[in-house]
């Protein structure tokens, strides 16, 4: 069905026009894979091995100053590959700005560096993602289930996990 009003489309944004992408590029030329815009929100795709450093950069850089990690959200795009998409929502309280960092992870090796050293508040967010998606965080001090019982089998928010559970 055709929708009324303007339709939002994801567009590739100019990486040089965005301050965060610019600063990340200056730090490491490979840090920015792509910059896209949707609904006025900027998403910066970062390679998996650089997320710890990029997060640290976003927090420490005085011109960026993303001091609040609002949330970490995982999306399972099964059966597409790379299957998992981690979205880090950063907020800069002094600059009143938001940005989303994105890391893509393949289904057979969903491991990424933890950002607890940058924001200690990432602890439970990463545990939640581990619990529900089975994405492992390298360097997390206590990576165990948080919402589900410890002996639970499977990761329920994966797309190949049925809504009613395994019967």
């Amino acid at each position: 069905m055709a929708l009324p009003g303007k339709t939002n489309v994801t567009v590739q944004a100019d990486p040089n026009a965005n301050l965060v992408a610019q600063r990340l590029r200056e730090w490491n030329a490979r840090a920015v894979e792509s910059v896209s815009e949707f609904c006025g929100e900027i998403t910066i795709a970062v390679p998996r091995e650089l997320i710890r450093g990029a997060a640290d950069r976003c927090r420490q850089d005085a011109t960026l100053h993303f001091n609040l990690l609002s949330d970490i959200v995982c999306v399972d795009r099964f059966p597409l590959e790379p299957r998992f998409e981690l979205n880090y929502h950063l907020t800069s309280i002094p600059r009143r700005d938001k940005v989303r960092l994105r890391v893509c992870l393949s289904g057979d090796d969903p491991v990424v560096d933890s950002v607890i050293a940058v924001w200690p508040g990432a602890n439970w967010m990463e545990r939640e993602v581990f619990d529900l998606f089975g994405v492992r965080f390298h360097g997390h001090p206590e990576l165990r289930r948080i919402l589900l019982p410890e002996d639970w089998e499977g990761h329920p928010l994966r797309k190949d996990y049925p809504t009613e559970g395994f019967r």
Partner: protein
Amino acid sequence: MTTVETATGPAKTMVLNMGPQHPSTHGVLRVLLELDGETVVKATPDVGYLHTGIEKSCEAKTYSQAITLTDRIDYLAPLSNNLGFCLAVEKLLGLEAPKRAQYIRVLLTELTRIQSHLVWLGTHAIDLGAMSVFLYCFREREEILNIFELVSGQRMMTSYFRIGGLALEPPAGWLKSVGRVIQMLPSRIDEYEALLTENRIWIARTKGVGYISATDAIAMSMTGPTLRAAGIPYDNRKVFPYSSYEEFDFNVPTRTDSDCYGRYLIRIAEMRESLKIIRQAMDKIPADGPIKADAPGIVPPQREKMKTEMEALIYHFKIFTEGFSPPPGETYVTIESPRGELGVFIASDGTPKPLRAHFRAPSYINLQALPRLIEGRLIADVIACIGTIDIVLGEVDR
């Protein structure tokens, strides 16, 4: 009994299991406390007893159906959740609710904030031994719930905000009822203050208890009254305004003491600010005008139209059988719920059901700072610190 190294040297400690059935954990929170005498050496919160898989259920429902699930996340502030979810879907669709609906949304979410703070104050006070405040707070909360019932037909699980506007026209004269309640509330808030603010027992139980520095609070991703009590004026209504909040005149109360007492005063001040917003909203709400956006295919048509026009009937049928499909993409919307920053993340893949719906539950994130508040303090302070974070376990566990 185990021997561990504590701050004062090796000592015998005892592990005490608090909860999940404990009146002052406000639901089913379990905290494992390692005690040295009466001092808490280590605290480990254990959550998940109320996990119902709401995010997974959202993926199996159409966007309109998922609204009813959002009520059940933070059941003390259902309208805030409704608002966050609706705003996120509206953002995906590029849709805006009419001004009249936006003002009504502001009015009702502020009433939600007051009633949520009333429950917080009542339960926090009864935990610390002030029985009468609990009874008074619940008396006033009931008045606010009556307004929700008047408007939506439900006291708690309202589902009143819908994508593109409101579920139905509020009944005639409802603003008079709102007027009566907000007329009564200021003196009632004074009454709570008279019972607590200078009460020596209250001060002894809360002042200097549960301190966290502003830097630590931000590092732990804490938001809401806890962060504002640490001196950071971060409020989504001001910083990233939504639903026409930029048109309202209100203050964001902050303090620097960052203890349980400070957070109590912040929430009292917030109730007064909310009353200010409600008064302005009552003046702003036009007597008539649309409460739903003009978006056939998304917003269900009016009953009469549906019965008389063929196109409207087709739209009605399509909305309720297959739903509507927002363009593929992701959005993350944050609003200020009574407990802090409520974030709603929705990923659409261009089908009528969300690929992923995620709720950043403020009390879940705030709760992880609990060990920092209580470690090294007395066991009695644990009760005060759990109360001061203002957790709702429905939201923590989702």
